């Protein structure tokens, strides 16, 4: 066992684990974060994706010792139900899931994409997410959600402020009929 002080969603978190422990189990079990999912344990599906220093990392195969010095961001670090990140808001607005199990990875990789490519075309979005599997087949909605978020982020950028626009009521909002 060794002690690691991780920086997760801006907070220092100290855990005592074996150095080869995959980051995923620390996030889920020690820090009780639900966002990153166990999907395959083989870096094949993307459900466990988190950002380390802004880059997508498959936390199911990343030993904690290799990421301990980085800034770790999970989907919980993007926003909350009451204060959603534009990507979260866009995925909800597009109803871009069925079971939603892949959603964490989709959002996190989309975040990395939009950080470096604020105006992606559909092809770039598909390429960026091609390493993520979705079994319910919400792919087209996910691409639309990323475009919607990109648009909102660009609009916020034009306004010069990072603050997202006022929340729309999401629970009972009528979308299109």
């Amino acid at each position, binding site marked *: 066992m060794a002690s690691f002080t991780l920086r997760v969603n801006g907070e220092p978190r100290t855990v005592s*684990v*074996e150095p080869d*422990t*995959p980051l995923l*189990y620390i996030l889920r*079990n020690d820090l*009780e974060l*639900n*966002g990153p*999912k*166990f*999907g*395959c*344990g*083989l870096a*094949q*599906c993307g*459900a466990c994706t988190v950002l380390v220093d802004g880059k997508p990392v498959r936390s199911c195969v990343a030993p904690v010792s290799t990421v301990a010095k980085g800034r770790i961001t*999970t*989907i*919980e670090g993007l926003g909350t*139900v009451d204060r*959603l990140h534009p990507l*979260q808001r866009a*995925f*909800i*607005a597009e*109803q871009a*899931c*069925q*079971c*939603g*199990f*892949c*959603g*964490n990875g989709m*959002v996190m990789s989309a975040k990395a994409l939009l950080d470096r490519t604020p105006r992606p075309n559909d092809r770039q*979005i*598909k*390429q960026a*997410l091609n*390493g993520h*599997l*979705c*079994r*319910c*087949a*919400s*792919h*087209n*909605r*996910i691409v639309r959600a990323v475009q919607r978020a990109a648009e909102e982020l660009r609009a916020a950028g034009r306004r010069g402020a990072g603050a997202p626009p006022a929340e729309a009521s*999401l*629970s*009972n*909002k*009528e*979308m*299109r*009929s």
Partner: protein
Amino acid sequence: MSATSSGDVSRRAFLKASSGLVIGFALAPRLAIGQDRPAPLPGSLNANRMLDAWLRIDPNGTVTIFTGKIELGQGIGTALSQIAADELDVDLKRVEVVSGDTARTPNEGQTAGSLSVEHSGTALRFACAEARDILVSAAAVKLGAPAAELKVSDGAVSAPSGTGVTYWDLARDTDFKREATAKVKPKQPAEHRWVGKSIARRDIPKKFTGGAAYVQDVRLPNMVFGRVVRPPSPGAQLLSVDEAAIRRLPGVVAVVRDGSFLAVAAEREEQAIRAREALARSARWGETESLPPTGDALYRHMMSSTVPGETVVEKTSPVVAAPVKTLEALYTRPYQCHGSLGPSCAVAQWQDGKLAVWTHSQGVFPLRAELGKAFGIPPRDIRCIHAEGAGCYGHNGADDVALDAALLARATSGRPVKLQWMRDDEFMWEPYGSAMVMKLSGGIDAQGNIVTWSHELWSHPHSTRPGASAGVNLLAARHLAPALAPGLPADVPQPAGGAARNAIPLYDFPNVKVVKHYITDAPLRTSALRTLGGYANVFALESFVDELAAAAGADPVDFRLRHVKDPRARGVIEAAAQRAGWRPSARGDGTRGRGFAFARYKNLACYCAMAADVEVDRKTGRLSVTRVVAAVDAGQIVNPDGVINQIEGGIIQSTSWTLMESVRFDRTRVITRSWADYPIVRFTDVPEVEVVLLNQPAERFLGVGEGSQGPTAAAIANAIANATGKRLRALPFTAERVKQAMA
């Protein structure tokens, strides 16, 4: 907890739910045997007849509805709340949904067969209409005004004089502990405020914010982590294993060995995974060649089965002219996986001889009964509580892992166990969608009309779920010593059908014969995968319709319309053709083409027709499905976007089945163990999808969850034939197969 409740399920809620185990709950008056049979009630109300089984109104201004159907990401919690809010005249925000808990909800069997809105929605519609009537009658007494003159707005009942009272005031004195009569007429479609609208799903926000949304997120005090070590092959027996060495590994709490069942629990999850690997290395197994041959030999093997053909339907019209041209074709479908993105998981805890299980089973009541049989305890000593898993698309490992967790939890001294299957557990041990062979033959007369039609099929079972038969239909039961055998699965009877689902043409052919060989001796375990036999049967049937159309020199859309009278079938065929810009008898250009297909799922649920566009790279065999346009008639639509999501997801998932998917195995072992062995569609493979809804507000609900699966496969096959002149009849249409066909 409830997976469909509107709020985030906090950890505290889980703790609260687990601290006191409420087990057993009588929901219906016991009907003495020999009494008169009660009048039939609509939907699931018939089997769960008490109003208070379905809803509760609280003085704090909330409405709680109870359903035995569970959220699978199909949006059922949202759709049911729309139905309830409309009948009760309350705002949707007031409606909480409790689902799939053997201690709290009605028993509605399995959440399967695209029946949740039909069964649970219909029950809630009538129960809530009757509850509203009871509340308004009580208000009439209180207000001294005739009930007919009262108006309800968001639970506030008002009289013309201006006086009023609310449901919440009336709640304390209103008794729903009474049998439903279904005599109160539900609202007319024009009166609906919520039904028919694309209300945003209530389960989604928590899924994108790290809320506790899944069974994997259940955390109980003092919980340990479990893993199971499965045999290396279906016919394997455990010979020896050094359990003592594994018990000495860091963090290991328990090792359970019972016959060939092997599992380990540890303090930390990564410790459980390491202990699993060590157990697997230490275990010695005796393996046997128990699996069937592969490739084309598999289908010959199935067709050589001694199981006699059983006539499913036979229709003859003696006056019809003899065919001038006849065709015969053989279509095949391999074993295919559910391939849930998250492997199966359950949490189990034993306290004072009673068992609680948090599970993503599609049927908490059938699972409870099966666990009761496995442990030899009465169902009342078991509580099964649903929490969502990853999408399942049918009977995956959800029920099996519940038994695994419960077996392991017997060795952890009351500590709860979260047992998570690894990826290879899921791929190697989930029950597969059965391989199938369909032999079609048919003839056309001089006018180019189909006059004879025959469909003979060979299939293993499509439903071996808990409760589907006697015995214990849970995987670990067959590995225990002594083994608890699964029952002999009966096929799902017509009209829905299992192996022969959708084998009976909806077209008006004068002579029809459908024969099935239902082979229960299944060396690879099979069960319900989205549509059961429907996917393969519609693939064969709708491919063969096109083959006959070609023989008759007819346009595929026109040919279908010539053979079907049902106006709703015609409606979706015409709508899909029109929206797709179907050009009659247009030929493909050698690489690009368009195909058409139609089915009414189960011949009972939604109608769905579609046109698919494909591009074939004749050199590499690479096949792209570029666009699909579908039209759907689902009767009255509760949530349009929910319907579109189901149909669209079904089209893309079926594209994946059709182009890529088959389980690989040799004579001893399943070789499919990871996504590397079982490719599925990725973003760059996915077609554009457009869905046209033909809403029928005056018609009853028709299920949509499985409606697009079958037509997609046939539309793609027909598009390839249109593009290249080559007919593909063996699924999946891999690049290798396409290349071979083009040569």
